[in-house]
């Protein structure tokens, strides 16, 4: 078997076989899913069976509250509100409506022992308002039907780009920010993994044994590619998990909730399971309005490109470190700095994807993996013309080849250099040196 393949295999397997790999790979999506699902669960959790007593002294509301799933209204008469122990009769709350002046209604009160829940609160408020509104229309002699017919309810399609593809800037913002940030984490996380791997080889002195069998460049690339494989595998597992979550997600919520979420979203603006509806709707909207094929394939490209660009540098740093691990901190600084600058530009780019800063940030290979991912969801070729994308990709490939070549030069000298503290200034001199 080819030597570099052997190295890749070892680097890949030793990491994948670790227990921590499984834990991290499975916990991260669970964490994100939790962020998404828990608010929905909390918002809908108020909907277990509730019986609400209604005492209506105004006689306007009798039978007007519609029962919905889990919420039932019971209209009581001849009850003294002050002394009625509604809990004893199995009610979770009591809604008291006094005799109302329809022009200036006041004094409507809901009594309950605990917090009534967002759903109940907003439901009651909405119905009370609807009924009063109806009564007022009636008093003013306005025909309901005519009023509704006159109401304007036009939704405007915000189209962007030459092909007029439907886009949504909030979604683009979210997707752009998330993918840019994930790239940032990948660069840092896997870059550091490469550096630690090289340091381990140097400190444990296996490096010299290894390079009496393989070329230093093979050793370095084997490590880089092996760790990239770990990252890709992780990414793949996540994609599969997310896709299966998409299938499982509806099982968590009743069909009704989903129905309400999609159909009744507009009507129940402040009401119902607002948070849940919001979240579910966002998910559906995001899925619908983004070119996922483009985003995912570009994400993989920029993930690999950015990783290859930086990991060679991290490997070079690892080769410079001696016994003292604190060396690593000062040596990594010049590498982490552009990554952090990239993150900054990315954050400004998601708000302003057409700016000069965004353009240059997405072209220069030091920052392009993060910044370009922030721009892409805004539309290709609308916000990002094809030539931007092509130029950025070509420069990233050229940049990664150049970086790897330079880092390889530093690495092959550094990996055998013991005892002496090495600075970047010295290391850069090695680039010009022949073997």
């Amino acid at each position, binding site marked *: 078997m080819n030597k570099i393949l052997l190295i890749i295999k070892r680097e890949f397997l*030793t990491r994948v076989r670790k227990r921590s790999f499984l834990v991290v790979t499975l916990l991260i999506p669970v964490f994100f899913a939790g962020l998404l699902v828990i608010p929905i669960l909390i918002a809908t959790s108020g909907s277990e069976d509730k019986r609400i007593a209604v005492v209506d002294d105004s006689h306007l509301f009798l039978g007007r509250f519609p029962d919905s799933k889990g919420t039932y209204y019971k209209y009581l008469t001849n009850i003294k509100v002050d002394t009625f122990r509604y809990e004893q009769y199995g009610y979770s709350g009591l809604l008291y409506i006094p005799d109302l002046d329809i022009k200036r209604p006041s004094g409507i009160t809901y009594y309950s022992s605990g917090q009534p829940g967002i759903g109940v609160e907003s439901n009651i408020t909405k119905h009370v308002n609807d009924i009063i509104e109806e009564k007022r229309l009636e008093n003013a002699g306005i025909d309901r039907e005519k009023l509704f017919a006159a109401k304007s309810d036009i939704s405007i399609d915000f189209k962007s780009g030459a092909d007029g593809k439907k886009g949504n800037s909030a979604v683009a913002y979210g997707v752009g920010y998330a993918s840019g940030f994930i790239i940032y984490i990948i660069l840092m996380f896997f870059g550091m993994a490469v550096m630690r791997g090289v340091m*381990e080889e140097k400190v*444990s*002195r*296996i490096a*010299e*044994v290894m*390079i*009496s069998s393989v070329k230093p460049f093979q050793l370095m690339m084997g490590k880089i590619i092996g760790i990239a494989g770990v990252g890709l595998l992780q990414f793949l597992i996540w994609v599969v998990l997310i896709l299966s979550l998409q299938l499982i997600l509806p099982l968590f919520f009743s069909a009704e909730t989903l129905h309400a979420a999609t159909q009744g979203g507009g009507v129940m603006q402040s009401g119902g399971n607002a948070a849940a509806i919001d979240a579910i709707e966002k998910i559906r909207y995001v899925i619908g309005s983004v070119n996922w094929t483009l985003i995912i394939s570009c994400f993989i490209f920029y993930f690999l490109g950015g990783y290859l660009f930086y990991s060679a540098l991290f490997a070079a740093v690892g080769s410079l470190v001696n016994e003292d691990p604190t060396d690593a901190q000062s040596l990594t600084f010049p590498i982490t700095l552009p990554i952090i600058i990239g993150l900054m530009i990315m954050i400004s780019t998601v708000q302003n994807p057409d700016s000069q800063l965004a353009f240059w940030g997405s072209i220069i290979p030091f920052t392009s993996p993060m910044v370009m991912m922030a721009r892409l969801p805004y539309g290709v070729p609308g916000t990002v013309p094809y030539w931007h994308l092509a130029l950025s990709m070509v420069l990233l490939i050229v940049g990664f080849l150049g970086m790897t070549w330079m880092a390889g030069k530093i690495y092959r000298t550094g990996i055998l250099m013991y005892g002496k503290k090495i600075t970047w200034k010295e290391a850069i001199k090695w680039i010009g040196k022949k*073997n």
Partner: protein
Amino acid sequence: MNLIEVKNLRKDYATHKAVDDISFVIPRGSIFGLLGPNGAGKTTLLRMITGIFYPDHGQILFNNKPFDPERDIQSIGYMPEERGLYKKMKVGEQTLYLAQLKGMREKEAKEKIKYWFDKLDINTWYNKKVEELSKGMQQKVQFISTIIHNPSLLILDEPFSGLDPINANLIKQEIFDLSKSGTTIIFSTHRMEQVEEICDRIILVNKGKKILDGEVKQIRHDFKQHLFRIGVGTMPNFAQMATWHFSIIKQEDHAYTVKLSEGSTTNDILMHFIKHDIPITYFQEILPSINEVFINKVQEMEQPLN
């Protein structure tokens, strides 16, 4: 037949010449000692022979062909002075990995591993992690990883450092066995007593330069100072020892160390004792140890005679 011919090898570092115009040959099947104080350029020399460094100048012939790291690296086993193994890897996997990197097939490598693990009695360690082993045990694993692919050239840099006497002996025996089976061995050290015991030929380097090279026996012979030791049955009195054939260097209990004078022969010494009726129990030439040659030569270099 030489396995290796090194011609005018030179390697400069930024601050100094690590290897300065060194030439030597290593006959096939010999045990070749590379000697020198710390910082003499031994490791740099070895790294050039193992293809880790390229020489700035000069040529290395391997098997009578210019050294091609890509190809010849497979026939070399190198155990650097700074030992190293992947600490978290299992012993067996690690040896297999290193063997495969030397171009062995998995099946063949596994058979060889079994053979060597049995031979050095470390079979029970196969599934242990390297970090669980003692330093001496790790040395054994390292040694096996170095020779597993049956190299025609074996380079050992201070192979006995860190080994207890029993294991050192075990490894020494393996080295002799490998040598007998035709493996050429380069043995780098600054421990001279081992050199005399093990090596056929040596090269002595200091400050990047070759001081001398040749067969161990020949070198000791070349540097002899005509010293002899005579054992006597009874100690003679002082007057009986007066002669111009030799001078007494050291008097011991029932023995003398004497230096033969120019123009005299060993028989003149013996005749002297016989004439005086002093019973001789033994007579022996004292050859300088490589250590003495080494120290002499190095000191000569430090303080050149004006």
